[in-house]
């Protein structure tokens, strides 16, 4: 977690101050903070409810019903279901202004929770024929609780809003099998979530269990990687393991391909423009020690931060795998599944909103960070409208050191005290954006 030089932080801060011609009145700021504070217990209760009843991607029916119920109480205009199980709600402010979208994702993961929380998930599901536990192991439960609370705060102060707020509760951020695609943010965009009324800006956050609790982290430009899936089938010729000369050995060819793919990054990609990763995460060939199999299947993931590099890497992967295979008389079938684009924070917007995060969490708890190679389908919204995505640190203070609360693991854990900072951040971003925009 390397942050930029303090001097840069200062520059960002000063720049933000200078263009911020209009400010949310100090009294209103205080009232909003107090209101958020007042709702903290409910915020935590909601998060615990979502946590106890997680649902897999595109199956978030009970989750979305719970959200709809509470939004109705606030008297918002609701669209449901959107993009399978999604919920979209519109809050019209007392004064004219831009349309600000706020987004939370809602899906859990096929992981069996391992801890002794009173609200631990006992839910089970069947995924691809396998029985599994279900767990909010990425923090989406927190995102929903935060956004519901934000909706309540903003509704109470709607007369002070200059514009409208669109609350987007999005299903299936974790992705679906290729056959079910498109889903999640991509499908929401296709179904017109950013239109009627047309969204001007979108904000979103992600809880980060490995970052200090209450810290806000962001980055102008590319924050999270584009992700694409990679499937390579090496087709050789089978033979007895004792007579490789009768074969075209797909295992040795596959190992040459794996090595060759690394040089796509190390030798052929302009890493100063953006980092890139090619990972082969699964390789399967054969079923016995003394049989040279006919084929080897590899699965991998590609991470990149620049559209040009992304296309270039795809092309080079194809060339590398197929030519190396041909060098030994084998063939390579390369399939690249286009998944999520880069989570790209509009630089002007990010620099403008940076001070809002500083105001929310304090300068010492706001960091400009290096990009991360994880991916996020929030990027589909950002392809359409300027968007700003940031991380909310939530490292549990009392965690045992041998159990790092890594996302997507059975030991994932967050510090609920961080949630309030998330609420304040989204409330402040909304107001600051509206007040700045109008002057």
């Amino acid at each position: 977690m390397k942050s930029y030089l303090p001097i840069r932080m200062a520059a960002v801060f000063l720049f933000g101050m200078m263009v911020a011609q209009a400010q949310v009145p100090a009294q209103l700021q205080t009232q909003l903070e107090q209101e958020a504070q007042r709702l903290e217990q409910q915020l935590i209760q909601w998060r615990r409810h979502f946590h106890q009843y997680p649902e897999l991607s595109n199956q978030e029916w009970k989750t979305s019903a719970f959200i709809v119920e509470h939004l109705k109480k606030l008297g918002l205009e609701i669209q449901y279901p959107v993009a399978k199980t999604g919920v979209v709600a519109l809050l019209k402010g007392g004064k004219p202004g831009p349309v600000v979208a706020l987004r939370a994702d809602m899906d859990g993961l096929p992981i069996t929770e391992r801890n002794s929380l009173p609200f631990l998930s006992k839910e089970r599901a069947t995924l691809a024929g396998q029985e599994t536990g279900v767990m909010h192991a990425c923090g989406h439960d927190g995102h929903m609780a935060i956004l519901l609370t934000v909706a309540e705060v903003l509704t109470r102060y709607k007369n002070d809003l200059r514009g409208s707020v669109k609350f987007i509760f999005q299903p299936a951020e974790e992705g679906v099998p290729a056959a079910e695609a498109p889903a999640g943010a991509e499908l929401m965009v296709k179904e017109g979530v950013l239109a009627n009324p047309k969204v001007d800006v979108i904000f979103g956050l992600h809880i980060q269990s490995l970052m200090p609790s209450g810290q806000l982290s962001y980055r102008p430009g590319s924050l999270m990687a584009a992700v694409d899936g990679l499937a390579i089938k090496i087709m050789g010729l089978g033979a007895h393991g004792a007579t490789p000369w009768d074969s075209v050995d797909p295992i040795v060819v596959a190992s040459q391909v794996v090595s060759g793919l690394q040089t796509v990054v190390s030798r052929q990609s302009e890493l100063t423009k953006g980092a890139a990763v090619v990972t082969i995460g699964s390789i399967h060939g054969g079923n016995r020690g003394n049989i040279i199999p006919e084929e080897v299947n590899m699965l991998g993931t590609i991470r990149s931060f620049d559209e040009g590099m992304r296309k270039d890497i795809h092309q080079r992967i194809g060339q590398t795998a197929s030519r190396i295979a041909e060098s030994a008389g084998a063939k390579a079938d390369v399939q690249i599944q286009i998944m999520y684009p880069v989570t790209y924070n509009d630089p002007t917007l990010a620099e403008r909103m940076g001070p809002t995060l500083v105001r929310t969490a304090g300068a010492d708890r706001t960091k400009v960070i290096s990009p991360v190679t994880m991916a996020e389908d929030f990027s589909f919204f950002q392809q359409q409208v300027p968007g700003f995505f940031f991380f909310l640190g939530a490292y549990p203070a009392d965690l045992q050191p041998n159990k790092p609360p890594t996302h997507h693991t059975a030991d994932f854990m967050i510090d609920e005290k961080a949630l309030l900072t998330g609420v304040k951040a989204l409330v402040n971003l909304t107001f600051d954006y509206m007040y700045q925009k109008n002057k």
Partner: protein
Amino acid sequence: MKKIFILACISASVGFAQTNPKLQAKLEQQAKELEPKVIGWRRHVHQYPELSNREVKTAAYITEHLKTLGLKIQTGVAKTGVVALLETGKPGPVIALRADIDALPVTERNSLPFASKERTVFNGQETGVMHACGHDSHVAVLMGVAEILSKNKADLRGTVKFIFQPAEEGAPAGEEGGADLMVKEGVLENPKVDVIFGLHIQSISPLGRITYRPAGIMAASDWFSIKVKGKQSHGSAPWMGIDPIVVSAQIINGLQTIISRQTELTKEAAVITVGRMQAGIRENIIPEEAFMAGTIRTLDEGMQQKIHDKIRLTATKIAESAGATAEVTIDKKTPVTFNDPALTEKMVASLQKAAGAENVIRINAVTGAEDFAFYQKKVPGFFFFVGAMPPDQDPNKVPAHHTPDFMIDERGFLTGLKAMLNVTTDYMFMK
């Protein structure tokens, strides 16, 4: 071992026509008597070694001796070669016997009274010259064989062609030479040669031992070079170029899989060695091209061709995988030294008479090469090794051929002499 025993039984039971035992005993006796002279000749040749295609004094020395035997002599064959014909006037096969006569650019390091003091300039470098591969012995043995056979001409049949061949170690750059050139100049014609025999002295094989192998005994040696063309860039920005060094590394690994995965090693061994690699001039410049060169050793012509094709495929496709190109050149140098299997089986008994059955051993192929192979491409031939390691030598510390400490035990010559006489006369009298 078992196989040798079976072979011995076969040759005994089939009962090939053999040299009259009386004649054989006489030749053997004469060989013993001639041994001191053979050693003397070898010492002379050893003391005055000459490099490939420069064996002028050596050829003159040989010619002088052959003249005393009354043979028909051709000199200046394939530059400095000498060919002599012994015609018995009786019908029978034409048998060629070959000795190679060139020395190496090695500076001798021992205290022999006949150590070479010759010096020359080779590839622009001053160097000593030394018979560091034992060709001096080959010359002396064949001179002895010529003398004994000439003396006993009346008892023999057919024709014997003595071939003293230059430049076995390879002609100087830009020159032709050696067995290849001798064949081109018609050494196997007029009269047409039916069979050819040759031997090589071996410092690493015990004194008195003869070793052989049917089929490929010494490897074909081909040279290859690969030029990988990439695109130059600064070392800090590899994405701006195409790195021919990383591509070359991938190619070198890929080439090894031709042997390990794609070659039928139970048929014969094979070797691909990249012995040379050159690229770049500075740490922080990715060069435009990389050059590598190596040798390919094979023991079977079919495998040789396949491996050549696979080298081309492997190098060009791996280069393309990174956007580079590879230019592959394969230079066929020396073919497999291939002992005609039927001929080999027939001649094993002749070797056993020369060295004793227990001293004739079938060996594995060696991956060194020998231009005797060019004769064997044209006519059936048999090439074998004669041991000359001194009995008190620690076998683990034998100075290798081609080194300044190379040393042989001259008592090995008699075994060589007898073996050559036996294969010649046995073949002559075979039906």
